Protein backbone atom coordinates (compact mmCIF):
# COMPACT_ATOMS: atom_id res chain seq x y z
CA UNK A 1 0.00 0.00 0.00
CA UNK A 2 1.39 3.36 -0.92
CA UNK A 3 2.06 5.67 2.00
CA UNK A 4 -0.21 8.12 0.24
CA UNK A 5 -3.12 5.76 0.71
CA UNK A 6 -2.68 5.26 4.39
CA UNK A 7 -4.63 7.73 6.51
CA UNK A 8 -2.43 9.23 9.17
CA UNK A 9 -3.86 9.62 12.61
CA UNK A 10 -2.26 11.30 15.57
CA UNK A 11 -2.62 8.27 17.83
CA UNK A 12 -0.88 5.92 15.48
CA UNK A 13 1.76 5.22 18.06
CA UNK A 14 2.38 1.58 17.47
CA UNK A 15 3.22 0.53 13.93
CA UNK A 16 3.87 -3.10 13.30
CA UNK A 17 7.06 -3.15 11.30
CA UNK A 18 8.07 -6.17 9.32
CA UNK A 19 11.02 -8.00 10.82
CA UNK A 20 14.22 -8.48 8.88
CA UNK A 21 15.19 -12.10 8.44
CA UNK A 22 18.56 -11.44 9.95
CA UNK A 23 17.27 -10.26 13.32
CA UNK A 24 16.52 -13.62 14.91
CA UNK A 25 18.44 -15.71 17.43
CA UNK A 26 21.81 -16.93 16.22
CA UNK A 27 22.01 -20.57 15.24
CA UNK A 28 25.00 -22.61 14.18
CA UNK A 29 24.55 -24.72 11.09
CA UNK A 30 26.83 -26.80 8.93
CA UNK A 31 26.93 -26.85 5.15
CA UNK A 32 24.04 -29.30 4.96
CA UNK A 33 21.88 -26.91 6.96
CA UNK A 34 21.87 -29.14 10.03
CA UNK A 35 21.88 -27.38 13.37
CA UNK A 36 24.92 -27.94 15.50
CA UNK A 37 25.52 -27.34 19.16
CA UNK A 38 28.09 -24.68 19.58
CA UNK A 39 30.39 -26.14 22.20
CA UNK A 40 33.23 -23.79 21.52
CA UNK A 41 34.07 -20.97 23.89
CA UNK A 42 35.87 -17.85 22.81
CA UNK A 43 38.53 -17.14 25.41
CA UNK A 44 39.41 -13.61 26.40
CA UNK A 45 43.11 -13.00 26.01
CA UNK A 46 43.75 -13.00 29.76
CA UNK A 47 41.71 -16.11 30.49
CA UNK A 48 43.83 -19.19 31.07
CA UNK A 49 43.43 -22.04 28.63
CA UNK A 50 41.53 -24.88 30.31
CA UNK A 51 42.54 -28.50 30.01
CA UNK A 52 39.22 -29.79 28.77
CA UNK A 53 36.64 -28.27 26.54
CA UNK A 54 36.83 -26.52 23.22
CA UNK A 55 38.46 -23.13 23.26
CA UNK A 56 38.76 -20.52 20.61
CA UNK A 57 41.80 -18.31 20.89
CA UNK A 58 42.16 -14.88 19.42
CA UNK A 59 44.48 -14.64 16.45
CA UNK A 60 47.31 -12.84 18.21
CA UNK A 61 47.14 -15.18 21.17
CA UNK A 62 47.22 -18.20 18.89
CA UNK A 63 50.35 -16.87 17.20
CA UNK A 64 52.22 -16.58 20.45
CA UNK A 65 50.84 -19.53 22.42
CA UNK A 66 49.98 -22.38 20.04
CA UNK A 67 53.58 -23.43 19.82
CA UNK A 68 53.63 -24.31 23.50
CA UNK A 69 50.17 -25.84 23.71
CA UNK A 70 49.16 -29.44 23.26
CA UNK A 71 45.77 -30.44 22.00
CA UNK A 72 43.68 -28.69 19.42
CA UNK A 73 42.13 -25.29 19.48
CA UNK A 74 39.93 -22.93 17.64
CA UNK A 75 41.32 -19.66 16.30
CA UNK A 76 39.35 -16.53 15.54
CA UNK A 77 40.62 -14.66 12.50
CA UNK A 78 39.38 -11.11 12.27
CA UNK A 79 39.05 -9.29 9.02
CA UNK A 80 42.49 -8.02 8.07
CA UNK A 81 44.53 -10.65 9.88
CA UNK A 82 46.81 -12.80 7.74
CA UNK A 83 45.78 -16.42 8.11
CA UNK A 84 49.07 -17.53 6.57
CA UNK A 85 50.80 -16.59 9.81
CA UNK A 86 49.05 -19.59 11.39
CA UNK A 87 50.62 -22.02 8.92
CA UNK A 88 53.17 -23.55 11.32
CA UNK A 89 50.40 -24.67 13.70
CA UNK A 90 47.56 -25.72 11.44
CA UNK A 91 47.72 -29.28 12.74
CA UNK A 92 46.80 -27.94 16.18
CA UNK A 93 43.83 -25.98 14.84
CA UNK A 94 40.51 -27.80 14.98
CA UNK A 95 38.32 -24.82 14.06
CA UNK A 96 38.83 -21.51 12.31
CA UNK A 97 36.30 -18.79 13.00
CA UNK A 98 36.51 -16.10 10.35
CA UNK A 99 34.74 -12.91 11.24
CA UNK A 100 32.62 -10.70 9.02
CA UNK A 101 32.44 -7.52 11.13
CA UNK A 102 29.96 -6.22 8.62
CA UNK A 103 28.71 -8.22 5.67
CA UNK A 104 30.29 -5.69 3.24
CA UNK A 105 33.77 -6.49 4.55
CA UNK A 106 34.85 -9.26 2.21
CA UNK A 107 38.37 -9.88 3.48
CA UNK A 108 37.66 -13.26 5.03
CA UNK A 109 36.45 -14.74 1.78
CA UNK A 110 40.13 -14.79 0.89
CA UNK A 111 41.01 -16.27 4.28
CA UNK A 112 38.79 -19.30 3.76
CA UNK A 113 39.98 -19.88 0.23
CA UNK A 114 43.63 -19.66 1.26
CA UNK A 115 43.09 -22.14 4.06
CA UNK A 116 41.33 -24.63 1.81
CA UNK A 117 43.28 -24.28 -1.39
CA UNK A 118 46.78 -23.29 -0.34
CA UNK A 119 47.03 -25.26 2.88
CA UNK A 120 44.53 -28.03 2.30
CA UNK A 121 42.92 -27.28 5.62
CA UNK A 122 40.22 -29.85 6.18
CA UNK A 123 38.73 -28.71 9.46
CA UNK A 124 35.67 -26.54 9.95
CA UNK A 125 35.86 -22.95 8.80
CA UNK A 126 33.06 -21.08 10.46
CA UNK A 127 31.60 -17.78 9.30
CA UNK A 128 30.67 -15.58 12.26
CA UNK A 129 29.61 -11.98 12.63
CA UNK A 130 27.33 -10.30 10.11
CA UNK A 131 26.46 -13.44 8.17
CA UNK A 132 23.44 -12.92 5.92
CA UNK A 133 21.62 -15.32 3.66
CA UNK A 134 22.52 -13.47 0.48
CA UNK A 135 26.21 -14.14 1.04
CA UNK A 136 25.95 -17.81 2.05
CA UNK A 137 26.62 -19.13 -1.44
CA UNK A 138 29.74 -16.98 -1.78
CA UNK A 139 30.92 -18.27 1.59
CA UNK A 140 30.27 -21.88 0.67
CA UNK A 141 32.21 -21.43 -2.53
CA UNK A 142 35.17 -19.98 -0.65
CA UNK A 143 35.34 -22.95 1.66
CA UNK A 144 33.24 -22.04 4.66
CA UNK A 145 31.36 -25.05 5.97
CA UNK A 146 29.84 -23.73 9.20
CA UNK A 147 27.79 -20.61 9.74
CA UNK A 148 26.33 -18.71 12.64
CA UNK A 149 23.31 -17.01 11.15
CA UNK A 150 20.51 -14.97 12.66
CA UNK A 151 18.02 -15.92 10.00
CA UNK A 152 14.41 -16.80 10.64
CA UNK A 153 15.03 -20.22 9.07
CA UNK A 154 18.71 -21.03 8.83
CA UNK A 155 18.34 -24.37 7.08
CA UNK A 156 16.07 -22.88 4.47
CA UNK A 157 18.46 -19.96 3.96
CA UNK A 158 21.31 -22.36 3.25
CA UNK A 159 19.26 -24.60 0.98
CA UNK A 160 18.06 -21.57 -0.94
CA UNK A 161 21.66 -20.31 -1.29
CA UNK A 162 22.84 -23.62 -2.74
CA UNK A 163 19.96 -23.72 -5.21
CA UNK A 164 20.44 -20.21 -6.59
CA UNK A 165 22.79 -20.97 -9.44
CA UNK A 166 23.79 -23.91 -11.58
CA UNK A 167 26.46 -22.04 -13.51
CA UNK A 168 29.75 -21.28 -11.82
CA UNK A 169 32.11 -19.31 -14.00
CA UNK A 170 35.18 -19.78 -11.89
CA UNK A 171 36.59 -22.51 -9.72
CA UNK A 172 36.97 -21.77 -6.03
CA UNK A 173 37.34 -23.84 -2.90
CA UNK A 174 34.21 -25.90 -3.38
CA UNK A 175 33.48 -28.83 -5.65
CA UNK A 176 31.70 -26.89 -8.38
CA UNK A 177 33.43 -27.19 -11.68
CA UNK A 178 33.78 -23.96 -13.63
CA UNK A 179 31.86 -23.61 -16.90
CA UNK A 180 34.99 -23.89 -19.02
CA UNK A 181 35.75 -27.28 -17.49
CA UNK A 182 32.27 -28.49 -18.38
CA UNK A 183 32.38 -26.97 -21.84
CA UNK A 184 35.61 -28.72 -22.73
CA UNK A 185 35.41 -31.79 -20.49
CA UNK A 186 38.50 -30.80 -18.59
CA UNK A 187 39.03 -32.54 -15.29
CA UNK A 188 38.98 -29.82 -12.66
Amino acid sequence: MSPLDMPYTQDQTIVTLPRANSSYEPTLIDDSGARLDNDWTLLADDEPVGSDGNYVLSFDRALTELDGLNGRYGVRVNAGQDVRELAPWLDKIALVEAVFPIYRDGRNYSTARILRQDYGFKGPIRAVGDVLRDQLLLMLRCGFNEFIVKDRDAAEALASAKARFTTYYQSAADAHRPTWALRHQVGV
Partner: protein
Amino acid sequence: MKLLTTNRLHDGVTLWWGENGWVLDAALAARLDDAEAEALLAEWKPRETEVVAPYLVPLNDADAPVQREHVREFVRANGPTTGPTTARIAQDHARALIFQD
Protein backbone atom coordinates in the same frame (compact mmCIF):
# COMPACT_ATOMS: atom_id res chain seq x y z
CA MET B 1 10.64 25.55 10.10
CA LYS B 2 11.37 22.32 8.29
CA LEU B 3 10.01 20.06 5.63
CA LEU B 4 10.02 16.29 5.85
CA THR B 5 10.76 14.52 2.62
CA THR B 6 11.63 11.07 1.38
CA ASN B 7 11.45 8.72 -1.61
CA ARG B 8 8.78 6.08 -1.89
CA LEU B 9 10.21 2.59 -1.78
CA HIS B 10 8.50 0.86 -4.67
CA ASP B 11 9.01 3.54 -7.30
CA GLY B 12 11.48 6.03 -5.86
CA VAL B 13 9.09 8.96 -6.30
CA THR B 14 9.76 11.98 -4.07
CA LEU B 15 7.26 12.46 -1.24
CA TRP B 16 6.69 15.40 1.08
CA TRP B 17 4.91 15.42 4.41
CA GLY B 18 1.71 17.43 3.95
CA GLU B 19 -1.11 18.36 6.28
CA ASN B 20 -2.25 14.82 6.85
CA GLY B 21 0.27 12.48 5.44
CA TRP B 22 2.55 12.10 2.48
CA VAL B 23 1.88 14.07 -0.70
CA LEU B 24 3.45 13.93 -4.15
CA ASP B 25 3.45 17.69 -4.72
CA ALA B 26 6.10 19.69 -2.88
CA ALA B 27 3.83 22.74 -3.12
CA LEU B 28 1.62 21.05 -0.53
CA ALA B 29 4.45 20.28 1.90
CA ALA B 30 3.69 21.21 5.48
CA ARG B 31 5.95 23.57 7.42
CA LEU B 32 6.89 21.76 10.60
CA ASP B 33 8.36 23.10 13.79
CA ASP B 34 11.42 21.29 15.11
CA ALA B 35 9.63 19.08 17.62
CA GLU B 36 7.01 17.94 15.14
CA ALA B 37 9.64 17.38 12.48
CA GLU B 38 11.87 15.26 14.69
CA ALA B 39 8.96 13.18 15.92
CA LEU B 40 7.75 12.44 12.41
CA LEU B 41 11.27 11.65 11.24
CA ALA B 42 11.75 9.20 14.10
CA GLU B 43 8.48 7.54 13.26
CA TRP B 44 9.10 7.17 9.54
CA LYS B 45 12.77 6.20 9.48
CA PRO B 46 12.06 2.58 10.44
CA ARG B 47 9.11 2.28 8.07
CA GLU B 48 11.36 0.87 5.40
CA THR B 49 8.73 -0.99 3.42
CA GLU B 50 7.08 2.31 2.65
CA VAL B 51 9.78 4.96 2.40
CA VAL B 52 13.55 5.08 2.08
CA ALA B 53 15.77 7.36 4.19
CA PRO B 54 13.43 10.26 5.05
CA TYR B 55 15.16 13.48 6.04
CA LEU B 56 14.44 17.04 7.06
CA VAL B 57 14.92 20.13 4.92
CA PRO B 58 15.48 23.32 6.89
CA LEU B 59 13.77 26.41 5.48
CA ASN B 60 15.11 29.94 5.45
CA ASP B 61 13.22 33.13 6.23
CA ALA B 62 11.93 33.28 2.69
CA ASP B 63 10.23 29.91 3.25
CA ALA B 64 12.50 28.14 0.79
CA PRO B 65 15.07 25.41 1.44
CA VAL B 66 18.24 26.86 2.97
CA GLN B 67 21.12 27.70 0.67
CA ARG B 68 23.03 24.47 1.06
CA GLU B 69 20.00 22.37 0.07
CA HIS B 70 18.35 24.66 -2.39
CA VAL B 71 19.53 23.25 -5.73
CA ARG B 72 18.92 19.67 -4.70
CA GLU B 73 15.46 20.34 -3.29
CA PHE B 74 14.55 22.56 -6.24
CA VAL B 75 15.36 19.68 -8.54
CA ARG B 76 13.46 17.19 -6.38
CA ALA B 77 10.40 19.42 -6.21
CA ASN B 78 10.25 20.43 -9.86
CA GLY B 79 12.23 17.94 -11.86
CA PRO B 80 15.55 18.26 -13.67
CA THR B 81 16.50 21.72 -14.88
CA THR B 82 17.59 20.37 -18.21
CA GLY B 83 17.13 17.69 -20.80
CA PRO B 84 14.02 15.90 -22.04
CA THR B 85 12.36 15.96 -18.61
CA THR B 86 13.00 19.55 -17.60
CA ALA B 87 10.55 20.62 -14.88
CA ARG B 88 8.67 17.38 -15.43
CA ILE B 89 7.53 17.10 -11.83
CA ALA B 90 6.15 20.64 -11.79
CA GLN B 91 4.38 19.87 -15.06
CA ASP B 92 2.91 16.68 -13.62
CA HIS B 93 1.34 18.80 -10.91
CA ALA B 94 0.32 21.51 -13.39
CA ARG B 95 1.98 24.25 -11.43
CA ALA B 96 4.76 26.80 -11.58
CA LEU B 97 8.23 26.12 -10.24
CA ILE B 98 8.67 26.39 -6.50
CA PHE B 99 11.70 26.74 -4.21
CA GLN B 100 13.31 29.25 -6.52
CA ASP B 101 16.10 31.42 -5.15
